């Protein structure tokens, strides 16, 4: 009798459960899966790229950056005009954009946002360029905004568009000095984009819902967007394959290969504005000679690395500007795998196996030195560790003895920044403005990220002029030349540009989805369900 009761109770519960499931399925929603949570709804306090991807769906910028990183389409600003001397842009804002609490979004909000962006107390991570380049931002009235620059340079629009526009009437309630010690901004975010924040359960779930007052009534098409946080990648992928999650920002190549033909999921591959490289520390006398660096580039079989380790999901890299970037020099061809040429170059540079021990040697400063060095990389990155082993094999064929040392990420960074290494496998995510100063300029050896201590006065000179040139077509000519210099000098052996693989479920119409290096949610408001 008692057991019967219990059974009945459970049946009841189960039926309730399934009815609730059906109810959810009818709704117009998608679930995005992520291994990390966002860090704040205040864009000026956030440090993660994933957070920015999401914040871009709830906050409007002045304009939408296009995939070519050069042109912009109107968004909050209907149109803009340049002054005659190009040091000033006047933006004309839309009159029909409202914050979710009903207050209108005006030019005063933008003026205030600029103050947030440049305030030393806020200490926004991307503040430097904007503080240096923009003199002031002034609202003339609710819809007219003037931006005054200190000088003319190519990325004036990019810079002002990087400023997140936040609601003045909310954000000014907390003094800047208190921002980093106050959870206020995360409680009830006031936004103005196509989506608004319905809830944020830290470490669990974010729910975005359609903003009914969004100025463009035809968007967004999908009414609710959930972000489910699943820190364990295996669990996350299983949920995606299972249909519980509809969108996955990043999928390992091996998984994508295995489920390529599955009818339930679809993979989208797109280039990522980044590249992986081997940096040769030119403080080490072995790597000081550019012939040696060229020989190393010839002697490493990068094509095989891409095929075997990355399953073909990468493009060979030839320069510090990825191939999808407008400044990229297309005439440069990757160094082919040519072991004879590598041998010849090493020979010319004075490296011979004089004692017959199978390892090349050379007299440097009166002392016989073996061609031996250590390559470091970080333990968290499986691909890099595999590449290190491949490189070790390739170089052994040239008579070079290479050791591999793997460090935990923070220790790894310390070795790099203190220049305490011989060679390193690492990667850069490239900024949308072409500027190689922080990475290759000789001034960046002391304070910057030129940790390979590359120095070429000719490069310095060209880079200095190209990065301030206003005419991008003219600048391109210089950038092409600059990339040729880097190509010739090989301060890095450029390995590959990663291809990002994202996944979407069969519920989403693939033709409505556009993903790119700017964001995997680039046009989320246009996505449609089948």
């Amino acid at each position, binding site marked *: 009798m008692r057991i019967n009761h219990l059974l009945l109770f459970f049946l009841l519960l189960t039926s309730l459960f399934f009815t609730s499931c059906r109810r959810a399925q009818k709704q117009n929603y998608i679930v995005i899966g992520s291994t990390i949570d966002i860090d704040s709804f205040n864009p000026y306090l956030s440090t993660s790229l994933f957070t920015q991807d999401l914040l871009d769906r709830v906050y409007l910028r002045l304009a939408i950056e296009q995939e070519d990183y050069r042109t912009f389409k109107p968004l909050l600003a209907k149109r803009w005009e340049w002054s005659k001397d190009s040091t000033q842009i006047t933006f004309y804002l839309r009159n029909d954009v409202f914050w979710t609490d009903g207050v209108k979004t005006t030019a005063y909000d933008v003026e205030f946002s600029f103050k947030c962006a440049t305030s030393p107390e806020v*200490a926004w991570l991307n503040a430097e360029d904007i503080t240096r380049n923009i003199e002031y931002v002034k609202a003339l009235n609710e819809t007219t905004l003037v931006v005054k620059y200190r000088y003319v340079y190519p990325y004036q629009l990019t810079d002002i568009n990087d400023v997140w526009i936040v609601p003045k009437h909310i954000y000014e309630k907390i003094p800047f000095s208190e921002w980093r010690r106050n*959870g206020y901004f995360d409680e009830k975010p006031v936004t103005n984009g196509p989506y608004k924040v319905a809830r944020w359960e830290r470490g669990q779930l974010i729910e975005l819902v359609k903003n009914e007052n969004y100025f463009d009534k035809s968007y967004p098409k999908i009414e609710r967007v959930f972000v489910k946080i699943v820190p364990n990648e295996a669990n996350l992928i299983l949920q995606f394959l299972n249909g519980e999650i509809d969108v996955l920002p990043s999928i390992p190549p091996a998984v994508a290969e295995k489920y390529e033909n599955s009818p339930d999921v679809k993979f989208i591959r797109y280039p990522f504005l980044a590249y992986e490289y081997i940096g040769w520390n030119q403080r080490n006398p072995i790597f000081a000679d550019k012939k040696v660096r060229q020989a190393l580039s010839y002697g490493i079989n990068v094509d095989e690395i891409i095929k075997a380790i990355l399953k073909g999901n990468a493009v060979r890299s030839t320069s510090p500007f990825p191939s999808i970037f407008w400044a990229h020099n297309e005439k440069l061809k990757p160094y082919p795998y040519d072991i004879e040429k590598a041998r010849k170059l090493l020979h010319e540079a004075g490296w011979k196996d004089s004692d017959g021990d199978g390892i090349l040697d050379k007299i440097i400063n009166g002392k016989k030195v073996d061609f031996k060095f250590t390559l470091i990389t970080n333990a968290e990155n499986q691909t890099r560790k595999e590449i290190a082993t491949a490189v070790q094999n390739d170089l052994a064929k040239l008579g070079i003895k290479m050791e591999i040392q793997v460090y935990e990420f923070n220790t790894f960074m310390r070795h790099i920044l203190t220049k305490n290494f011989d060679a390193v496998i690492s990667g850069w995510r490239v900024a949308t403005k072409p500027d190689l100063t922080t990475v290759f300029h000789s001034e960046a050896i002391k304070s910057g990220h030129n940790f390979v201590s590359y120095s070429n006065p000719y490069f310095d000179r060209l880079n200095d002029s190209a990065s301030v040139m206003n005419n991008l077509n003219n600048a391109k000519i210089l950038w092409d030349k600059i990339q040729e210099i880097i190509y010739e000098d090989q301060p890095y052996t450029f390995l590959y540009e990663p291809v990002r693989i994202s996944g979407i479920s069969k519920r989403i119409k693939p033709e409505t989805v556009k993903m790119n290096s700017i964001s995997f949610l680039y046009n989320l408001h246009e996505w449609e369900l089948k």
Partner: protein
Amino acid sequence: MLYILKRIVNSIFLSFGIATIVFFLLRILPSASFSDIYLNPRLSEDVLSRLKVAYGLDKPVLIQFLNWLKEILTGNLGFSFIYRKPVINCIGEAILFTLTIGIPALILSFGFGIFIGVQSARKRGKTVDRILNLSFLILYSIPSFWLGIVLILIFSYTLGIFPSSGLRSINFNEMNFFEKIFDMFMHIVLPSTTLSIAPMAAIARFTRNTMLNVLSQTYIKTAKAKGLDERTIFYRHALPNALIPVITLFGLYLPFFFAGSIVVEEIFSIPGIGKLMADSIFQRDYPLTVGITLFVSFIVIIGNLISDILYSIFDPRIRLK
């Protein structure tokens, strides 16, 4: 009573001492620098130094320590960088999640563990006992990250019975009361099971051994000689005495269930103490790491205290002094 009070005061000082050591260790470690998390080619030294000012990291370590002491005395346990609120609040929210899977796991592992251990002892030497004994060993040695994924693979991915992450469905807010209870229950099953398997095996094995030990005592022989039946001897005379050493395990495992498991919480995406600890370390949120250390060490010490107290209650021979 005075003894317990003394022990509690002692444990507060002890966990504080541990936290102090961790506080200084975090700053001495070569890799633990604030700039590391913000490595970004566009980040200038200038912004970095402003960040240090904003988080009070520009001051000498001793001053930082005094500031931290102040936070401890106000009951905040420090102020978290990433959550922008007092550490005590972060722990307060996380502990609920940890307990939600910890308490069922505690009941499961002690309930089943003792039960199976006793059964195994009853059937000592027989095939059942041998099989059980072997499976204790296997279950105890299974790493929980592997077990968790296998359970997910079977029960969520293939059979689709239990959800594999979080503690609530995404449509939780639209459910009625019963649906909510049921939903929570379904979400708790897999993580609690994963958490309880290894301790369960340990408890079962331990119970079996103490049980066998007790069964060989002379008073059991006396009971047999008196002609009492097997069941009475087993459950009345042997079991209560055999359970006394198991109490030690209770004290040992209490922090295991209440302080959160980094691995299990990561796999099943439960934002409990373990996950909080892992995040705080990776993101170099010093105050949070130190605060959680303080909390966890306190629980460990309290766990020991509780088992001592339970001893005195269950075993009249033991008196606390």
